[in-house]
C-alpha cells in the first residue's frame, strides 16, 4: 500500500506579465519521500516552491497540503509546512534561540513543548552551542542551518527547501545533505537544486523543470532507465541552451 500523499499540486500556473514563469506544473509528494525539483536557473523552481508554500498565489491551479486546500484552509495547510526560501528569512538582530522560538510560536506550537522542540531542532542542525549567538554574527553556513532549524522546529509533515546548499563549503554541503536524508525519514521533503548529483544523492524522485514546464516527473530509476542519468538530464534540457553547473 503506497504511503499517504502529504502534498499535491495540480496544474499550477504563474505569470509575470505575459511571461509564464510556471506553466501547468503538477506534482505529488508522499510521506517519507524526498523529491528533487531540478532545473537550470530561471526554470521556475523558486516560483513553484513559493506557490507550494503559500507565499505566492497561483494564477490557476490548486495546492493541497495534508489534504487541506491552501486557498480554502491556509491556516491548517501552512501549519503542516516548513519552508526555507533561497535566502533564509532571519532577523539579524535576534539570537538563534529567540529566532527559533519566534518561528515555533508563529506555527502555534504549544508552550509546554517549546523547549523540547527547540532542543531537538538545534541538535539536528548542529546548533546546540550557538543558541545565544546573534544571527548577524553567524557564518553563511550556520545561518543556513538556523534557516533549516526554523523550517523544521514545529515538526511539519512537509519540508520545502529552496537550494539549501548554495554558497556553502563542501563540509557544510555534506552536513546539510545528511540532514535532508534524516528529515526524509520523518517528513516529506521537496528540495530544489540545479545540481544533478545532489538529487542522485538524497532524492527518491525527481521533477525536472524547463522554462516553467515539468518535462520529467518520476523516480530516479525511471530517469536512469532512459539511459545514463546525467545524459538524460542534459537531453531533457537540450533545448534550454545551457548545461547544468
Amino acid at each position, binding site marked *: 500500500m503506497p504511503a499517504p500523499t502529504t502534498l499535491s499540486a495540480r496544474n499550477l500556473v504563474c505569470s509575470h506579465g505575459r511571461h509564464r514563469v510556471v506553466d501547468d506544473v503538477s506534482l505529488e509528494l508522499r510521506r517519507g519521500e524526498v523529491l528533487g525539483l531540478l532545473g537550470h536557473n530561471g526554470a521556475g523552481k523558486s516560483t513553484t516552491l513559493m506557490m507550494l508554500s*503559500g507565499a505566492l498565489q497561483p494564477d490557476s491551479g490548486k495546492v493541497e497540503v495534508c489534504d487541506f486546500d491552501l486557498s480554502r484552509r491556509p491556516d491548517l495547510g501552512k501549519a503542516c509546512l516548513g519552508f526555507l526560501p533561497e535566502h533564509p528569512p532571519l532577523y539579524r538582530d535576534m539570537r538563534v534561540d529567540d529566532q527559533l522560538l519566534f*518561528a515555533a*510560536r508563529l*506555527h*502555534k506550537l504549544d508552550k509546554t513543548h517549546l523547549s523540547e522542540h527547540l532542543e531537538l531542532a538545534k541538535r539536528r542542525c548542529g546548533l546546540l552551542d550557538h543558541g545565544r549567538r546573534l544571527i548577524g554574527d553567524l557564518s553563511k553556513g550556520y545561518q543556513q542551518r538556523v534557516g533549516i532549524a526554523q523550517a523544521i522546529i514545529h515538526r511539519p509533515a512537509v519540508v520545502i527547501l529552496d537550494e539549501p546548499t548554495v554558497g556553502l563549503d563542501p563540509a557544510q554541503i555534506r552536513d546539510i545533505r545528511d540532514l535532508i536524508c534524516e528529515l526524509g525519514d520523518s517528513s516529506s521533503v521537496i528540495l530544489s537544486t540545479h545540481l544533478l548529483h545532489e538529487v542522485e544523492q538524497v532524492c527518491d524522485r525527481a521533477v525536472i523543470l524547463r522554462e516553467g514546464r515539468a518535462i520529467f516527473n518520476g523516480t530516479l530509476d525511471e530517469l536512469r532507465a532512459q539511459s545514463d542519468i546525467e545524459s538524460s538530464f542534459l537531453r531533457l534540457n537540450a533545448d534550454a541552451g545551457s548545461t547544468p553547473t
Partner: protein
Amino acid sequence: MIRILARKDLHTLFSAPSTWMMLALLQFILGWFFLARLDDYLQVQTQLAQMDDAPGATISIAAPLANLLALLLMMLTPLFSMRLIAEERRNQTWLLLSTSPLSSAQIVLGKFAGLLALLSLVILAAVAMMALLALGTAADAGLILCNLLGLWLLAAAYAALGLYFSAISRQPVVAAFTALAVSVALWLLEMAGGTLRALSPNTHFQNLNSGLLSSADIVYFILFCVFFLLLTIHHLRRERGGH
C-alpha cells in the same frame, strides 16, 4: 498571535540604534519646548494674574506641547512604520510571516499593535512632562487626559496609514516618503474650508487639544484606523491568496 508579533516588532524597533536616536532627539525637543513655554509663562504670570479670565498653566504650556508632539508624530511615524512590512520585504524576512499559518488580519494587527506600543511610550513620556506642572500649580487633569487621548488616537491614525504604505511599497524609503506626503496633505486639509477640513486628522485633534471631548472626533479616528487597516489586510490577502 497578535501579541507575539507585536512583541517581536517592538523588540526589532528598539534594537535599532536609529530608534533610540530618534526618541532621544524627540525628548530633547519636547523638553526644550516645555522649559521654554514654562519660562515664558512665568514671565507673564504677574500680568495674567490681573486678568479676569486668564489662561491657566495647563492650556498655556501643556496644550502647545501636545500640539508640537502631534506635528512631530506626523513626521516620525512613517520612519518607524516603514520598517514594519517594507523593510521585512527588503530583508527577505517577510517570507517567514507570509508562509506562517497567521492570517493577514493577525499580521496587520500585530504590527499595528507593536508600533502603537512604541508611540504610546513616546506619548506617555510627554504626558509625564505635562503632569509635572502639578508640582507647582493646580494642573487641569481633564485637559491633560484629553490631550493624552487625542495624541494616542492621532498616533494610531498615523500608524495605520504608515502601515498601509509599508505594505504596498517594496522599498522602505518609498513607504516612508509616501506616508509622510499623504500625512502632510491631510494635515494641510485643515486649512481648507468646508467638508474637506473635516477629513484632516489635525482638525479632530485640535478639538481634543483644546479640551473638547466629542464622540464625533473619536469616531473619526476609529474609522480612519479601521479604513487603513482594512486596506492593508485586503492588500496582503490578495498577495497571499485569500489568507
